[in-house]
């Protein structure tokens, strides 16, 4: 229960991971003395202050929400890691380049529509997109897939239809706005994106002769899971903080103005990090807001949120995650407003 100590360490860790990978150096484990000092220190702090503060209503709610986000995402993160490991170890390198259209500008919308096949929430799509890039898929197409998969899969669309009964236009608008955003971001990457924003992968790619495929798969899987899992916990902590700290009465302040309400719900989607299978129900409960603002909430949520930014920073590097999330938010808000204005 050494949360405070860990939180202090987090900033330093995030800062360290990127440069260490950049130089191709090994990121070595924390030396044993540090571990012992941290453990003894946190035990001492806990025995001095008691565990009472952990049961303060706000702290207990924070721990519950943090654990809930982690538990909810963990199976999907594992699924994504298994898929990514399998793609890496068993799929022939040229398979994707043969399937996808040769011209990147055409590959982007195809990859976006292909997002339908990955059922689950957004945590699964980050490792899969990363392994696609390592297998030679053009990054723009992989990013279109990354953005569309959690937003347009059948589970999410069904949930949307259930949450907005008698309102099929909302489902159509969500599907369309998400696809448009994913494709636009793919094309934007083709136009402006630069390879050096992506962290050079220290991973070897694909199967190497002379190594056991199964062993490669297992070790790669373990490495990817531990890496992404750490960032997931970090994202869950940030999201839980906002989830517990932002009182819902703030909502009513913004629901009056059409423009502010759109921007406010977009920000809320980023901060709350609600799973894409559930965000339609949250949107349905925001009754004071216009349908367009609620659509923006559902378009932004699966593509950008705190836990996703943390996961992307871990997988692709920080300089990428910051630029990509900012651009995606802007494009998603624009697509939501335009399509919401036309359809709703």
């Amino acid at each position, binding site marked *: *229960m050494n949360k405070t100590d860990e939180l202090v360490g987090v900033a330093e860790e995030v800062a360290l991971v990127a440069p260490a990978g950049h130089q191709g150096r090994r990121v070595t484990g924390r030396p044993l003395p540090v571990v012992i000092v941290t453990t003894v220190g946190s035990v001492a702090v806990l025995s001095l202050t008691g565990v009472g503060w952990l049961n303060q209503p706000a702290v207990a709610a924070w721990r519950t929400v943090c654990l*809930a986000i*982690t538990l909810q995402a963990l199976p999907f993160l594992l699924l994504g890691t298994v898929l990514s490991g399998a793609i890496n170890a068993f799929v022939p390198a040229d398979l994707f380049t043969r399937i996808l259209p040769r011209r990147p500008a055409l590959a982007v919308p195809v990859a976006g529509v292909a997002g339908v096949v990955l059922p689950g929430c957004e945590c699964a799509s980050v490792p899969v997109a990363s392994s696609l890039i390592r297998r030679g898929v053009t990054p723009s197409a992989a990013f279109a897939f990354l953005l569309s998969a959690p937003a347009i899969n059948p589970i999410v669309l069904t949930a949307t239809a259930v949450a907005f009964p008698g309102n099929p236009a909302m489902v159509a608008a969500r599907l369309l706005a998400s696809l448009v955003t994913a494709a636009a971001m793919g094309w934007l990457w083709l136009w402006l994106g630069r390879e050096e924003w992506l962290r050079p992968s220290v991973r070897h790619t694909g199967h190497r002769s002379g190594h056991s495929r199964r062993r490669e798969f297992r070790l790669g899987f*373990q490495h990817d899971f531990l890496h992404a899992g750490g960032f997931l916990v970090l994202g869950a902590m940030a999201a839980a903080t906002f989830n517990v700290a932002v009182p819902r009465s703030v909502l009513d302040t913004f629901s009056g103005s059409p423009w502010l309400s759109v921007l406010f719900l977009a920000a809320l989607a980023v901060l709350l990090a609600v799973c894409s299978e*559930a965000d339609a129900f*949250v949107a349905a409960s925001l009754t004071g807001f216009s349908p367009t603002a609620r659509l923006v909430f559902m378009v932004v949520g699966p593509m950008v949120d705190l836990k996703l930014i943390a996961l992307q920073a871990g997988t692709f590097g920080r300089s990428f995650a910051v630029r990509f999330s900012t651009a995606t938010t802007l494009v998603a808000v624009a697509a939501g407003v335009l399509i919401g204005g036309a359809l709703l």
Partner: protein
Amino acid sequence: MKRHAQVLLLVLTGLGLLHAALFSDLCLRYVKEGLRPLLIASGVLLLLLGLAGAALDRTAPEADAHAHGHDHSTAPRIAWLLFLPALSLLLYAPPALGAYTASHANNKAVPKEQRFDPLPATVPLPMTLTDFTARVQQDGAQAIKGRSIRMTGFVTPVGQGGGWYLTRIIFTCCAADSQSVKVRMYGTSVLPANTWVAVTGTWHPEGRLGTKSATAALDVHRTERISPPVNAYTDDLPITPS
């Protein structure tokens, strides 16, 4: 992160998931019942992965690492954070969301009913908080007037004024998207927050019954403490006393 720490982390996370989903009902405090099979599968997978690592990676990890200049036997330091949920599940699991969240959360939108069936003749009539709210605010026939209603939930004190709400917290996916249903209680003293109770009473006349102006509130005749349900995140009918 060294190899033995990774093994420990994988095994602890696996055990934590199994403890929460297979050997107890802990996971219901955080996620839906439907996720349980996936959590159990994840727990087994992580446990096997950790054990496989402990058993198989003993032999010459160094030679393998040098072969391609990249070492899978160390993991990034951010992975240390995964110890928090694992240990939290095993040693000190936080409680289900309660009054603190309910007093901050937004109220669940009560669905619009097309038509209302006649109420059963049972006395007292068991109802969910959502049904009660819908009846009070939407049923033009005012079937609920004068009826004795029985509902269960936990206590959320009202800010300053005293008084309390009977409350249920409901979520769709995990505790991060929780919404609450609240019914105001009149005529009893405030109980401590988060106490689970069954109340019996009649609608508290305020506003015009069957329209939006009516408040979801109850004049309580009888309150009894009950034990918290295993799955607290539902709006269930109270079990009728036999």
